[in-house]
C-alpha cells in the first residue's frame, strides 16, 4: 500500500495527515515533494501526523530526518504528531526521538508553533 497525504491548515500550521507506508519508493518521495511544495509557498510551520502510518523503514526514517533538516534550514519548524508504537520504537532505537519535536496532542502541537 502506497502512502497517502492529506493537507489541512489550522491556525497557520500546515498539517500533513499521512497514511500507509513510508518506505523506499513508496512514501519517501511523497513526503519530500510535499514539504518542498509547502516551503515554496512560504508555509514553514509543518506538522506531520503519523497516526495512520503502518510501517516505516530506514529509508522512511531518513526521509523524515531530511524533511526536518530541510524545513529547519529554511527557517521553519517541522514537528511529528501521533507516533504509533512501531514508529516511536524505531525513533528511540535510532536516537532520533529527542531530535524531533514529537507531540501526541494536535491542539497543543499547533499552539507550540506559536511559542517559538
Amino acid at each position, binding site marked *: 500500500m502506497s502512502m497517502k497525504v492529506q493537507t489541512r491548515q489550522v491556525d497557520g500550521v500546515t498539517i500533513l495527515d499521512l497514511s500507509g507506508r513510508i518506505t*523506499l*519508493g513508496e512514501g519517501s518521495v511523497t513526503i519530500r515533494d510535499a514539504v518542498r511544495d509547502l516551503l515554496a509557498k512560504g508555509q514553514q510551520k509543518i506538522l506531520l501526523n503519523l497516526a495512520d502510518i503502518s510501517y516505516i523503514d*530506514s*529509508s522512511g526514517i*531518513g*526521509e523524515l530526518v531530511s524533511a*526536518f533538516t530541510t524545513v529547519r534550514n529554511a527557517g521553519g519548524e517541522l514537528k511529528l504528531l501521533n507516533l504509533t508504537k512501531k514508529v516511536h520504537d*524505531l525513533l528511540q532505537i*535510532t536516537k532520533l526521538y529527542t531530535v524531533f519535536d514529537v507531540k501526541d496532542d494536535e491542539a497543543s502541537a499547533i499552539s507550540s508553533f506559536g511559542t517559538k
Partner: protein
Amino acid sequence: MAKKLKEAILTIRTSTSTLPSSLLSAVDDGHSSIARTSLADSTTSRVSFTLDSTLDSVNKIEQTAEQYAQRAGFDEDTIPHIAMAVREAAVNAVLHGNAYDVNKHITASFETTSDSLVIRITDQGPGLDPNTLPDPLAPENILRGSGRGIFLIRAFMDEVNFRQLHPGTELTLIKHRTPAQSGT
C-alpha cells in the same frame, strides 16, 4: 512479476524439505497476503530463489520473511522486526549492491531449522565492508538522511554475518528460536 517469481521458485534448490505450498499460493495470486495455515512442516524448511534488482523483489522478500517468521513461531512483536531486517538487507542488495542493474540479480534463501531462522541475501555488487560504515548514532551522523539499514538489521537480529563473494556480498541474518518456538 508474480509469474516470474513463481517460475524462479519452481527452479528452487531445495535441501531439506518440500516447498511450502502457502508460499507458492501467496506468489501465485500476486497479492501480499500471507497464508497462515496449511503449512505441512512447521519446524524445518528451506527455500531459495533468484530475483531481479527491483523494489518489487524487495517487497516479495519482505513478505516471505514475514511468512517464515510466523511459521517459526516468533511473537507478534518480533515478526515485524525480522521482516524489517530482511527488507533492509534486500534494499541494500538492490539499491547499494546491484544499483538496480537489470543484468544483476539478488538471491534470497530462507531456512527454518530446529533452533533458528536463517535468511541469506546476496547481490552481485562491488562488495560491502561493514567495518567502514559510519555509526548512525554518532552526533555527526544523526541527521544524515541515510545509513541506518545495517544498524537496524543488527538491532533486530541475533547474528549478522557478511561474506564477500567477489563480486557481491552475502548477508546472513539469524534469529534464534526459543525451545517453545521450535517445538522440540
